[in-house]
């Protein structure tokens, strides 16, 4: 398809064939469609990852401390 073809344009091509003394013709109808959009990958910030690690560690420590005093 032409690089500058617009979405929705319709183009045709045809092929003739002869086989076993029989004549044939084929018509191909080609419609231009839009190229798929490129989805950019979202990169999570490093500080966000570190923050999640620290938060998890603090929560785990608090739960451990509570269990420790509860058992005692």
């Amino acid at each position, binding site marked *: 398809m032409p690089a500058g073809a617009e979405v929705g344009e319709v183009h045709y091509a045809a092929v003739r064939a002869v086989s076993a003394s029989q004549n*044939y013709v084929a018509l191909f109808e080609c*419609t231009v469609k839009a190229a798929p959009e490129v989805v950019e990958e979202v990169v999570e910030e490093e500080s966000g990852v570190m923050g999640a690690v620290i938060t998890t560690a603090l929560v785990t420590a608090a739960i451990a401390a509570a269990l420790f005093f509860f058992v005692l």
Partner: protein
Amino acid sequence: MWKVSVTDRPVFAATSAALAVASGNTAFTFTGFATAAEGLWVSGAASVPAIPDPRWDTVTQSFEVEAGKGFSVNVNVVTGSTTASVVAEEDLVDEYNKPLNLEARSLILYGEVAKETAAVTTVGSEANAIWSAMDAATATAYPGFSW
């Protein structure tokens, strides 16, 4: 007119695998002319059939292609001495003799499978290698076209 290739590549070989195709190509291969799954061709028996009019006739294949991509057609029918050729743009008309494609927006033939006749050198004379239409499909080479 039989055009070998717009690029006329020196490595062009008369096999279907060597057919020059555009990137992202949509390929169609026909092993017969009356197979519904592959697409039906119009048969005119001994006479040459008219090109179907897409307004009310069934086309062989209707599909979508991204701009800048292409498609190819291979006729892999070995039995019955099969030959094939592309309909010239000026002959690509409907039943009222109107062109099917918009002017200056026609598809460009990108590659064809053809037959190579090697160069022959004898004493005192020389015949250059030539490309020509395939005589007929064989077990390893058959007509193929890409746009």
